[in-house]
């Protein structure tokens, strides 16, 4: 029924049968945690605790403990917010857009990528919430609720409010999409637990699977749900970073006030998201021995997406420079002259090297199919993308309209501490996920094994 080509390499190698898939993926959920996992978890918890201390100090003393000043009122907080939201773009892109394009190689990596998306969005959301100073009020200040302290509504003309709706919708829909995908796989672990006689695990995973049975009618509805969720998530993914970019693009700050921002931010988001997926997937693959499921072919395809999006980002940088000169606007021209040659030139050229030059190395097949090179470059790309946001935000702000306000930004240990805090959240959540949840979508991989191995 499924047309397969003899020329294409199989998506899953090692001659796996359907039974092998259940076994290979469920194994690490059922086994005792390995030493490596415990060590990784301990490191993440140390990061989390240190970060929690910094956050507690921040809440106690107020955001004055950050290195912000009158001129640079936004720095690491929003840099990190945009960086994490950007990373959070790959998961839903892989599972939604690649589903609509019928790219079946997504099936081995979509689970881990979606989990990464959800954790990255949680990390991102923590920055604006902490920046509001009073975390416990932040949750309802941003919602359109009748305000008990004077009946004012939130301002729907503000891009910051659009951000609230975009990021929270993205988080909820991604979470639902991810969970719906997990339901049949939880049932696999439940049934294996029944066979193994582990009653507690069977009960827990049955509750997680909502009593999934896998009837043909349910599968039919399930597929229809997955397709529509993909259709809804596709414009959603594109809308989120578009709206994030409007936080800047609708302002009148030189260097921010440009119409190129929405597509440029979306491409950058996919670029950094895929880099983070590669970083995590390469480690997950090694630790859980998933070499047959996440093959060099998968890594290569993701690297090709990195070349494409990295080149779009590179063109956007050059376009910005060109337009700053061509527009003849003095302020815009100065903002970019200052970026390239001012006191933050080191950040600008780090960004250029990491984001524009380094991904071009993937044109060489040897580098694109090398795991070590991919791992190193995936981290380099994310360093570059962090600098991109830092450059856009801080260099535009630190040269105010009045030269007497000109200043520099220096992060304090609380700026750094909070960034570390989000790494703590991210890695703790990811390691918990990879231990207790199936890291590869078993049902989908089983469906491709049938049509690829048995027909050939």
């Amino acid at each position: 029924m499924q047309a397969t080509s003899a020329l294409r390499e199989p998506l899953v190698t090692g001659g796996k049968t359907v039974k092998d898939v259940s076994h290979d993926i469920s194994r690490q959920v059922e086994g005792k945690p390995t030493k490596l996992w415990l060590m990784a978890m301990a490191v993440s918890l140390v990061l989390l605790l240190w970060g929690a201390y910094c956050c507690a100090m921040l809440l106690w003393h107020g955001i004055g403990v950050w290195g912000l000043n009158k001129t640079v009122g936004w720095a690491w907080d929003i840099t990190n917010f945009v960086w994490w939201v950007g990373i959070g773009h790959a998961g839903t892109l892989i599972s939604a857009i690649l589903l609509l394009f019928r790219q079946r190689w997504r099936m081995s990596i979509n689970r881990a990528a979606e989990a990464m998306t959800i954790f990255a969005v949680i990390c991102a959301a923590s920055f604006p919430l902490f920046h509001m100073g009073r975390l416990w009020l932040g949750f309802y200040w941003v919602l359109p609720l009748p305000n008990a302290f004077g009946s004012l509504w939130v301002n729907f003309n503000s891009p910051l409010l659009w951000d609230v709706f975009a990021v929270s919708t993205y988080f909820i829909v991604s979470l639902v999409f991810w969970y719906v995908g997990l339901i049949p796989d939880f049932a696999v672990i439940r049934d294996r637990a029944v066979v193994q006689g582990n009653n507690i695990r069977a009960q827990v995973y049955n509750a997680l699977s909502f009593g999934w049975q896998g009837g043909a009618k349910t599968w039919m509805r399930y597929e229809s749900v997955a397709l529509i969720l993909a259709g809804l998530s596709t414009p959603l993914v594109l809308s989120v970073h578009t709206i994030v970019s409007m936080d800047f693009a609708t302002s009148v700050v030189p260097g921010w006030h440009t119409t190129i921002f929405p597509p440029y931010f979306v491409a950058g988001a996919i670029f950094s998201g895929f880099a983070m997926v590669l970083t995590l997937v390469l480690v997950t693959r090694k630790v859980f021995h998933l070499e047959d499921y996440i093959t060099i072919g998968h890594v290569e395809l993701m690297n090709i997406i990195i070349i494409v999006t990295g080149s779009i980002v590179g063109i956007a940088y050059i376009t910005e420079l060109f337009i700053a000169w061509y527009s003849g606007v003095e302020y815009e021209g100065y903002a970019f002259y200052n970026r390239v040659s001012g006191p933050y030139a080191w950040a600008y050229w780090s960004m250029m090297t990491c984001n524009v030059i380094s991904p071009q190395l993937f044109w060489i097949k040897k580098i694109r199919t090398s795991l070590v090179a991919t791992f190193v470059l995936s981290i380099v790309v994310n360093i570059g993308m962090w600098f991109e946001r830092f450059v856009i935000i801080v260099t535009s702000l630190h040269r105010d309209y009045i030269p007497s306000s000109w200043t520099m930004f220096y992060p304090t240990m609380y700026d750094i501490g909070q960034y570390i805090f989000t790494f703590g959240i991210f890695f703790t959540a990811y390691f918990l996920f990879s231990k207790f949840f199936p890291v590869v979508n078993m049902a989908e991989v089983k469906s491709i094994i049938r049509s690829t191995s048995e027909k050939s």
Partner: protein
Amino acid sequence: MESDKHFVVGIFDNEDVLLSGIKKVRDSGIKILEVYSPFPVHGIEEALGYKRSRLPIAAFLFGLTGTSLGLLMQIWMMGYDWPMIIGGKNFASLPPFIPVIFELTVLLSALGMVGTFMIVSDMKPYKWPRQFDIRSTDDKHVMAIDLDVNAGKSKDELKRLLKDSGASEANEKSFD
């Protein structure tokens, strides 16, 4: 409801055999209760004669609710309940409202559709499913035939029919 339910269960190893098996079983006038598979099998809904799911309609209606809700909420709050002058802009103009309308459309559509799916498929965290064969989530396709519905046939007849249709095993299963 009866206290005892009896079923005949056919185990199929392969989806192609399953699809032809379903056809054979249905052609001989037997009503299949349901087929349980570890992964979605393409073409099984036609083979079993299921109608297309109407969940897309539910998704559309929930989405439409989100669109209207977003539009009305913003016009009412910004235009009527507490109009504020912000940069001399119109109190209620459409362009700045579009992002929130779009997000609410997606949110309500997704949540409403998944909620509907859970309800119509009777999925609850505290429900233990009636498992005809434990291997149906692992690697086997399991066809369940209710004996009460197919009263004219004996267990042995049904088992023979399942074997002839390509089932690797044919078992009996009862529930209290």
